[in-house]
């Protein structure tokens, strides 16, 4: 039995929602029987971005907000790899939101797991982009006066082809969603609602568990004609927040070509001879021949 957890000491606060996401993710990898050496978990900076060190696959712990960019480079250069990004709401929706949006335009086959707890944990509880206006969590000196971003609506309009929400303390449900996200051929966003027991004293375990319910919608786009309708439904659903909070898969569209497939339209050998696999030297001499290109410059 392959162990998908490392023995590194996990330095999250007791009962942090990150534990639930970590368990769900490692269980998902185990269920899928994914080759550890062919999997890369990439993160940014923050509590949740320590995740790569706790999962026994390749780990790339990058810069605040930039995990998606590194993940994109890895996947583009070696499309055989399964690439997963784990980062927080401050990381992905604050400093890194440009990358989150741009990823939707490409539909590169990567999975983004958004650890969403409404606060910047590692810097002691400032408001994150998902904290609703008017709330004052316990480390905030005043009420939050910014409106919140809805990561699902953002992902849907940005072009994500798999959009889902899970809840960190429901590990089995989250695991199933992560599995589907990983197997989806395109950019997938899994927004995982997650209490922060240390700094978010409003959106607590009790608060969430009174409100969340599981979607039973037909979320999958079956034909190009119904894409708009399905997306509109998903968008409306994504705005549901208050007494009732839906979790589950909101939208899935397998009809949009992935970025790799788009590249392969120009480079037919892309999947068999991607950048990471190219032999560029023999006996320490270049094997690339530029004589044809030089001919074009002849005078």
């Amino acid at each position, binding site marked *: 039995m392959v162990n998908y957890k490392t023995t590194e000491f996990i330095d999250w606060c007791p009962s942090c929602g990150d534990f639930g996401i970590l368990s769900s993710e490692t269980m998902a990898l185990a269920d899928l029987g994914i080759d550890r050496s062919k999997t*890369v978990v990439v993160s940014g900076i923050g509590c949740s971005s320590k995740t790569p060190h706790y999962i026994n696959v390749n780990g790339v712990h990058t810069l605040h907000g930039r995990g998606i960019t590194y993940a*994109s480079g890895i996947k583009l250069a070696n499309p055989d790899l399964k690439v997963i990004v784990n980062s927080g709401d401050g990381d992905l929706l604050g400093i890194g939101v440009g*990358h989150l949006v741009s990823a939707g335009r490409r539909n590169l086959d990567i999975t983004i797991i958004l650890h969403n707890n409404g606060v910047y944990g590692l810097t002691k509880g400032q408001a994150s982009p998902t904290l609703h206006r008017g709330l004052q969590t316990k480390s905030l000196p005043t009420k939050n006066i910014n409106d919140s971003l809805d990561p699902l609506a953002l992902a849907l309009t940005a072009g994500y082809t798999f959009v889902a929400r899970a809840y960190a303390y429901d590990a089995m449900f989250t695991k199933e969603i992560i599995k589907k996200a990983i197997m989806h051929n395109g950019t997938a966003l899994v927004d995982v609602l997650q209490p922060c027991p240390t700094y978010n004293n409003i959106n607590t375990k009790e608060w969430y568990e009174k409100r969340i319910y599981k979607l039973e919608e037909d979320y999958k786009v079956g034909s190009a004609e119904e894409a708009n309708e399905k997306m509109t439904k998903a968008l409306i659903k994504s705005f549901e927040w208050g007494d009732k909070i839906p979790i589950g898969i909101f939208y899935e569209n397998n009809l949009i070509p992935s970025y790799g497939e788009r590249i392969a339209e120009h480079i037919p050998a892309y999947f068999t001879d991607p950048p990471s696999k*190219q032999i560029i030297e023999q006996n320490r001499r270049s094997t690339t021949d530029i004589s044809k290109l030089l001919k074009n410059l002849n005078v």
Partner: protein
Amino acid sequence: MKITWMIGGEQGSGVDTASVLFGKAVSSAGYYVFGNREYYSTIKGRHSYFELSMSDKKVNSIPENYDIITTFDAETVFQHFKQAKKYFIYSETKKKKTIDSVLGMEPETKKEILDFMAANKIEPTVEGVVKYLNTKNINTIAVDYEKIIREVAEEQNINIAIAEKSMNTIAASVSFALLGLDRNFLIQAIANIFLKKQDVIQLNNLAAEKAFGLVKPVFGLNPLEKQERIQIDGNTAAALGKIAGGIAFQSYYPITPASDESVYLEANQTVDTKNENNYGTRSIVVVQAEDEISAIGMAIGSALTGARSATATSGPGFALMGEGLSWAGQTETPIVVTYYLRGAPSTGLPTRSGQADLKFAVNIGHGEFPKIVLASGDHKEVFHDAILAFNLAEKYQTPVIHIIEKAIANTYSTLDIKDLDYSQTEIDRGKLADPDPDPEKQYKRYALDAGPVSPRVPLGRNSIAWYSGDEHNEVGHVSENSTNRTIMYDKRMKKLELAEKEIHDDEKFNVFGDSNSENVIITFGSPKGALIDIIDDLSKEKIKLQIVQIRIFTPFPAKGLAELLQNKKRVIDVENNYTAQLGSFVSEYLHISPTHYILKWNGRQMNTEELKDAIKRIINNDEKRIVLSDGV
């Protein structure tokens, strides 16, 4: 012999095409050329121009003044007439144009020109300029462009608006005809430029034929014997060097003057490969990222998988890459950033040149980490340095910054094909674990038992690795232990010491001229060309020079340079910036301070004449700091 030429006109009116046409025609007749493009940060309307030196020997710099000035609009007449030496071609129908009718001219420029005109009693019209030039014994040639265009339209039975597109060809042809070279060189160049567009070729051929007959072949040049040659600009040289060096991935965000390199790579993404007797192809993935932060992140991600990966940018974009470069330094990831220098600070002079970012390149990224910074001095060096940059990045597992100025990116020169020979150039992929480590054992990415450079296993092989921008242990997991910190920090920094020892002196700096001279010039980048071009002239005037062009800045080649610079009477520092940044490195590392400075920061590269004049003033008058300001 050397003949200098320029053509100017509204941006978007075909100045670029005319200059390539003229350059190719001259080059194919066996002459070497060096050309420079000057343009505003705009697409249409503003004044742009192209200047060129041609010679039977290699030529490496731009001139101050021109033997032939080619114009077809009024603004070029006003902007450049002071630079006329022998022939001045202008539009017959624009004779009455006044300087006030030129709308795009900046008020500062207009005032300068009007002041000069007032001082020299020149009427501020094209006609007035022509009269003035005639008093200076400059041959003025009026061309009725509109008449030729009308004839072309009639004979080809095409719309006049289409025929007008040959205006630039007419201008290039008139000036080419002055040279006395066979018109077939021009016709071939037209075919070469417009490729298979038969109607365009026909139109331009006809225009060229008509223009050719207008002047006499006064320069009386003959075609020269030549070997196989190319005409290449700096962006293309960088792209070709990267291709030859094995680039497999490039990410970029559009920025002047860097993006032409990435666009070339994308347009030529599938390249030939030759492996013993197997012929094949491989393809480079080129990605336009959402910003430069993403561009560097993607390139680093790709580098982690083992692909030779790079990005290309200019000042504002490079500023955004600092954090990524710091991460690459900390995680020992081989990455190449091609850094095109332009006029700074901020947006500065986005389409002009400068060398004010040398220290920025050397110091970019928070914290201390090994970083190798190279700067090329000409197109040939750009090509070879692009290969070298990958080798150094992989050998020392660290970021390499390759500096190319706009003055090199947007100039072109004629090279012998053998200048770009890389058949004997080593491709050094550095320390890769071979065979891959036992997957049952934990791979240590930062193993300390192998010296400062640990064996690398790219992501996707059978090992598992961790990379973190946090301080980390041998495995790659976060560690804040103080002893580990001391050791890991030391391991990284030691790579720079290793690089200093291992990199050859001829890759660190070039030395030209007279080693016995009491005068040594230190410089980097584009001034190299002008310095090489004046060394013989100055020698005839009894001024001997030794020139040291520094090509690598970290690790700084202090030892090798000290031997060259010590005991010299004059150490003259030549740079395109205000604070003499290279000079301060020399002071810091060698404890030898430059005695004289030649500096320029107006966005234009140094030309042959102004540099020659400045050196003479230093030698003869002991002027300590000369600021150059030439250039339109």
